[in-house]
């Protein structure tokens, strides 16, 4: 860490990071860097204190305890970051794709070297289990940088031979300086989804992490600050209204990318409309997971896989935009299927997030925890039946202050609020259907269209459902896979744009057409 950051003790004077499950886990790791009591913003390759000096406390949802202080940035800090990005963008945009790809690959290599450490920090900051950060979040993020390194190397412009003497050349050019506002459910992975294509495409970025989970991206920046040229990556922290708004509404940015919810999505579009710049938005969903009767035709590996597919609603504590939070089960197997599905859910181990056997951890924040409990409450009031869970979970020791909720299965119907709103918790609402047409009707009876799942042994049925569901992704006989090179994005109110695919480069590039005449004769018009 450069000299601009002055680690300082917590306001209560207690040493941080030295006791509890996190500290014990960190002792097992070989390659790591110190965490600081206070972080700066990462601007122009340097660690800069917020210009007005404000900070806020960052809380670990695993314990409810303060773990560090984060800049409470204001418009001046955002301006400084945009200045730094503008200073870097022209040179980075002209940098050869081979060099840009080398930088991305070097970032991936460094992340991989420190993977268990970054995973531990991510768990500390977000609350998700260490199993997940080690096996999913971080490996996927590493691969994402490598994927876009290769995409940009392989990207080609085009030429159209319009006639014997006239050629239309199409070049990809970076947009310049782009703004990114990312969510708290996969802090490093969502940063990777946005940073990798933007930086690969030759842009300089100003990114604002979510205020619940700002730590891990700052730790990552510290690890890669010697790799990424100064000003190409700038991180400004703070609250939406104080730092997010000046960033998203700045006339000096060329694009905004946002993941979050619909009202803020509209606000971001509104700011973008004033500046006439593009946006990409990912605003969540209420994803249906459809189980046809034939999954239970045999008691085999496939049936087991489908039952695991049902339990996927609990992955990441349900804090996934594509959480399969509506399960549609064909009536003829409902009893048999649910009996086994509930047993499967009740086996989910919610415990110390730093134990490798823990399957779900803490919700990311107190307000999220409260919101989920309020949804469980309205579900009960609406008359939905709790098949399992339906309550908070109190863990012991230093985890007793954490935000834990038991995996919950409701039985009800699609008009209930718990079937229509993304709860963003480990809660699934189950209903039944008779025919494929009815399944499709229920699946599409939602304002959103991000993810969905179809489980059947009948490939023709799977195909028809896959094409009929109005959602950007239809997982077919699988769920919650997020590989690079499979496009991810929403229909309907779930947003605009497709991430995790080379087509995302286009969302960070201009098209330059150079129209050339190689003819030497006048047209004869004048």
């Amino acid at each position, binding site marked *: 860490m450069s000299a601009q950051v002055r680690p300082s003790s917590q306001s209560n004077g207690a040493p941080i990071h030295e006791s509890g499950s996190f500290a014990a886990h960190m002792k097992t790791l070989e390659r790591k860097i110190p965490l600081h009591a206070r972080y700066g913003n990462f601007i122009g390759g340097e660690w800069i204190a917020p210009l007005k000096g404000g900070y806020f406390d960052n809380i670990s949802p695993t314990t409810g305890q303060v773990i560090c202080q984060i800049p409470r940035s204001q418009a001046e800090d955002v301006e400084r970051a945009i200045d730094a990005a503008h200073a870097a963008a022209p040179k980075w945009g002209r940098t050869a794709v081979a060099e840009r790809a080398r930088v991305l690959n070097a970032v991936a290599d460094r992340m991989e070297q420190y993977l268990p450490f970054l995973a531990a920090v991510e768990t500390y900051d977000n609350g998700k289990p260490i199993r997940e950060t080690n096996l999913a979040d971080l490996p996927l993020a590493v691969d994402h940088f490598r994927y876009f390194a290769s995409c940009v190397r392989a990207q080609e412009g085009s030429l159209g031979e319009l006639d014997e003497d006239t050629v239309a050349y199409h070049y990809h050019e970076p947009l310049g300086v782009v703004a990114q506002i990312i969510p708290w459910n996969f802090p490093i992975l969502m940063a990777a989804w946005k940073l990798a294509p933007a930086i690969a495409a030759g842009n300089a970025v100003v990114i604002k992490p979510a205020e619940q989970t700002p730590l891990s991206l700052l730790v990552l920046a510290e690890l890669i600050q010697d790799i990424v040229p100064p000003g190409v990556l700038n991180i400004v922290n703070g609250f939406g209204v104080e730092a997010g708004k000046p960033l998203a509404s700045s006339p000096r940015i060329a694009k905004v990318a946002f993941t979050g919810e619909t009202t803020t999505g509209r606000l971001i579009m509104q700011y973008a409309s004033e500046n006439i710049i593009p946006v990409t938005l990912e605003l*969540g969903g209420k994803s249906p997971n459809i189980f046809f009767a034939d999954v239970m035709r045999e008691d085999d590996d496939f049936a087991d896989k489908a039952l695991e597919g049902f339990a996927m609603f609990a992955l990441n504590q349900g804090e996934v935009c594509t959480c399969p939070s509506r399960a549609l089960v064909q009536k003829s197997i409902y009893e048999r299927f649910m009996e086994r599905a509930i047993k499967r859910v009740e086996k989910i181990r919610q415990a110390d997030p730093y134990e490798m056997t823990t399957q779900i951890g803490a919700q990311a924040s107190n307000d999220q925890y409260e919101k989920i409990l309020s949804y469980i409450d309205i579900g009960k*009031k609406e008359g939905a039946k709790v098949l399992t869970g339906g309550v908070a979970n109190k863990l012991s020791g230093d985890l007793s202050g954490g935000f834990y909720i038991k995996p919950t299965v409701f039985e009800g119907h699609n008009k209930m*609020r718990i079937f229509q709103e993304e709860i963003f918790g480990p809660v699934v609402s189950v209903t039944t259907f008779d025919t494929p047409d009815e399944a499709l009707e229920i699946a599409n009876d939602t304002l959103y269209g991000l993810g969905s799942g179809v489980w059947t042994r009948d490939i023709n049925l799977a195909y028809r459902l896959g094409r009929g569901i109005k959602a950007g992704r239809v997982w077919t006989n699988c769920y919650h896979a997020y590989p690079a090179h499979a496009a991810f994005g929403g229909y309907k109110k779930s947003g605009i744009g497709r991430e995790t695919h080379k087509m995302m480069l286009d969302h960070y590039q201009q098209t330059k057409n150079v129209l050339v005449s190689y003819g030497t004769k006048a047209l004869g018009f004048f």
Partner: protein
Amino acid sequence: MDADRVGVSDAARALIEELKTQHGPIMFHLSGGCCDGSAPMCFQVGEFKLGGVDEKVGEIAGCEFWMDRDQFKRWAHTRWLVDVVPGRGASFSLEAPLNKRFLIRSSLCAM
């Protein structure tokens, strides 16, 4: 508009008064979607541009409460109490810097 649809807790009312002192006239728009969705977002009046898709569903502590009309159809069988909890969410809502977050608690409309 059903005058009783949206209520407000004492704690939320106090916070609204504090925000009015700080920011002047404010309003609410109920969000949907993921992350901090399904939660009331509080803005200065005029900051968030309302459109034909929005419906005014109530008033709390002298502030208009709006939401998307299609979303409202799916919430119409419930009534809501705007409450406040410790936290900050991740949104552009005005209360976040105070480490507080507005939250909806719901009950069923009388049949």
